C-alpha cells in the first residue's frame, strides 16, 4: 500500500515537472507549426543560469524568476532574428532550432564544465515529509503545486485575456486570424518568449531533483515531444493531461516492468499518432 502511495506521488511530481516543460513547447508548436527542438536546451540553459544566479542570490524561487526571464529574452531573440528570417520555411526553422540546440549544449559545456552541478533544495523543504510511516520528498510536492498553479495561470491567460484569445485564434486558423487584423508575428515573439521562459524556469525548479549536467537537454526534449504528441498540439489542456499521463505511465511502467522502460515510454506516443494523429485534445494533425 505504502509502495503504491509513494509511486502515485512520484508520478504526480514527475507529471508536474513535465508540464512546466511541455506547456511552452505545445503553445509554440500549435501557433508556429514548428517543433522547437531547442526546447530541451532552453530547459538546460535555465538550470545552468539558475546555478549561477544562486551563487549571488541564495533563493531558489528568485533564481527561477530571474533565470526564466533571461531564457525568455534569449528565446525572443532566437524567434526575432533567426526564425523570423526563415518565415514560411517550416522545415528550415526546425533544422535551425536543432542547430541552435547543439550550439547551446557546447556553450554550456565551455562555461559550466562537464561535471554535474547540484542545485540545493531550499532549507525548509529538505527533509522528507512523513505521514503515517510514508516518507516522501517535500520538495517534489511543492513542484507539483507550482505546476498546478502555473496551469491555472496559463488557463486564465488563454481563456480570459485578449492576448489569449488571439493566440487561440492563431492556433485554430492562422490565415483567418491575419485577415481579421491580429498581429500574428508579434504574437509569435510573445509566445516564444513565454514558452522559453517557462522552460527556463522549469529547469531551475527541476534542479534540486535533476541537477544541471551536460545531456540534460537531450534527456528532456523527447519527453516534451511525447507529452505534446499525446495531449495534442497547441492545447493547454492536452499538455496538462498529457504530462500527468506520461508521468503515470512512466512511473508505473518502470516500476512494474523495469526491463521495458523505453518501450513503455514511447509506445503510447506511437499508438496515439497511428490512431489519433491529433492527439487527445488537439485540433490539428501533427
Amino acid at each position, binding site marked *: 500500500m505504502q509502495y503504491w502511495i509513494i509511486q502515485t506521488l*512520484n508520478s504526480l511530481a514527475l507529471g508536474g515537472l513535465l508540464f512546466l516543460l511541455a506547456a511552452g513547447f505545445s503553445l509554440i508548436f500549435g501557433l508556429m507549426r514548428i517543433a522547437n527542438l531547442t526546447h530541451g536546451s532552453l530547459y538546460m540553459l535555465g538550470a545552468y543560469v539558475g546555478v549561477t544566479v544562486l551563487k549571488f542570490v541564495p533563493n531558489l524561487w528568485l533564481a527561477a524568476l530571474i533565470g526564466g526571464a533571461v531564457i525568455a529574452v534569449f528565446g525572443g531573440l532566437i524567434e526575432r532574428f533567426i526564425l523570423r528570417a526563415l518565415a514560411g520555411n517550416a522545415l528550415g526553422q526546425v533544422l535551425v532550432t536543432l542547430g541552435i540546440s547543439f550550439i547551446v*549544449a557546447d556553450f554550456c559545456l565551455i562555461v559550466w564544465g562537464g*561535471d*554535474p552541478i547540484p542545485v540545493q533544495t531550499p532549507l525548509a523543504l529538505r527533509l522528507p515529509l512523513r505521514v503515517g510511516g510514508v516518507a516522501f520528498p517535500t520538495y517534489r510536492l511543492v513542484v507539483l503545486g507550482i505546476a498546478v498553479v502555473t496551469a491555472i495561470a496559463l488557463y486564465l491567460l488563454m481563456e480570459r485575456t485578449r492576448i489569449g484569445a488571439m493566440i487561440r485564434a492563431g492556433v485554430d486558423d492562422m490565415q483567418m486570424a491575419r485577415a481579421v487584423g491580429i498581429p500574428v508575428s508579434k504574437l509569435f515573439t510573445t509566445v516564444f518568449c513565454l514558452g522559453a521562459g517557462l522552460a527556463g524556469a522549469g529547469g531551475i525548479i527541476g534542479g534540486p531533483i535533476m541537477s544541471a549536467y551536460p545531456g540534460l537537454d537531450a534527456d528532456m526534449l523527447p519527453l516534451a515531444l511525447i507529452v505534446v504528441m499525446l495531449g495534442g498540439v497547441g492545447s493547454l489542456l492536452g499538455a496538462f493531461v498529457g504530462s500527468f499521463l506520461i508521468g503515470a505511465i512512466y512511473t508505473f511502467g518502470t516500476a512494474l516492468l523495469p526491463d521495458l522502460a523505453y518501450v513503455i515510454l514511447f509506445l503510447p506516443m506511437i499508438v496515439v499518432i497511428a490512431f489519433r494523429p491529433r492527439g487527445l485534445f488537439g485540433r490539428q494533425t501533427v
Partner: protein
Amino acid sequence: MTFNRRRFIQAAGAGMSASALGFPAVVRAQSGPMRLGLMTVKTGPLASGGIDMERALVQYLKERNSTMAGRKVELFVGDSGGVPAQSRTKLQELVERDKIQIMIGPLDTASALASDDYIRQQQLLTLSVAAAEDMTQRKPNPWFTRGTSTSSQCAMPLADYCAKTLKYKRMITIADDIAYGHEMCAGFQRVFEDAGGKIVQKLFSPLTVPDYGTYIAQLKSNVDGIFLGFAGSNGFRFFRQFNEYGLRGKIAVVGGMTAFDEAVLRNMGDEALGIVTSCWYSAEIENAINKRFAANFRVDWGYDPGFYAAATYVEAAVLDATLEKLKGKIEDKEAFMKTVRAIKVDTARGPVQFDKYGNVVGSIYIRKVERKDGRLVNRVIHTYPNVSQFWTYKPEEFLKDPVYSRDWPPAKNLEL
C-alpha cells in the same frame, strides 16, 4: 618535340613517385618523433572525464619535456563525442592523416567495440581505457592492452569486502542498463553470493533516466546495503534523490569504480561522507609517483585527479617503460606487444603488470569518502594487491562461462 600538357603531367608524376619511393622510409620513421594519438571525448555527456584524460596526458608529457626513451613525442587528439560511429571515423583520421603509431583510448566501451576490427586491420597498438570485458577475455584483440580495469575487476574485490569485512548478508544492486553496468553487477553478484551473501534485488535503469524516484521507491528496506554501478553523472543524481527520500543512514551505500569518482565528489557535500567504493586508483594513494601527479594536477586545474585523469597518466607510464626497453623503437609492432605484456612498472596507481590476454594485474583499493583540508577525498582503507580480471577464479574455467551480462550469472536469490 613540344612539351605539351600531357607530357608535363607524365613527367611530373614520374618525378613525384620517384622521390616518394626513393626516400628511405625506414630511416625517416625512426629518426622522427613518435606520433601518439589520444582518442577521447571532449563534447557531450562524457566530456568531463574525456577532458581530464587529455589534461593528465599533457601533464605527463610536459613533466618529461615531451620525450620518451630519448625520442620526441607528438600528441594528436581525437574527439569521439562518445558516439561509436564518430569514434571510428576520428580514429581513421588519426591513423591515416596524422599517422599515429600508438593510441591511448578510447574512453567508452561502445567506442572501443566499434573500433575493434579497425584496430586489428591496421594492427594499431592500443592502450585502452574502456572496460569491455571480452576485449581481453573471450575475444582478445592482439593489439589491445588495458592498464585500467575491466568492468568487474574492481567490483569483485568490493563484493568480497562487503561479504567478509562489512559482513553484509543481503544486498541490492542497481546500475545503468548498458554493458558496463551489466558486467559490473554480474561480477559483484557472483563474488558476493560465492561468499555466502544474497543479492535480493537487481535493478537496471536506462542510461538517460530523468528521474530515479520510481526506482528508489522500489528498493527493499530489509537489506544491509546497496551497490551502485553507475557511470558519469548518474551515480551522483541517484544518490541525491536517494537522500531526498530519507534513505541515507537506513541502507548503506557502496559504489563501483566510477560512482563516486573524484570528479563527482568535488560537487558533493557532507551527505557523501562514509561511502565505501572500490577502484584501481585514488588521488590519496601514498606513493611518490602519485603524490607528485596529484599535487601537480591540483596546481594546474584546482581539483583532484580521478579515474579518467589517472587512466591516461598510468597508460603513458606503461608506454614510457615499454619504449625504454625497446630503446624508442615503436616501429616493430610485434616486439612492442611482446614487451608491453611482459612489463612490470611502478605507476601512480601502484605496481602494474599484464596477463597474457593484455589486461592489467594490479592493486584494487577499497576507499571511504572523508573530508580532508576542506574537500572530499576517497581515503584508501584497504588494498587488494595483484588483482586480475579473473579475481580468484581460474582463468581457463572463467573463460568457459559466458561473458558477464544482464542475466549471467543468474540471480537465484531475488525476492519479489
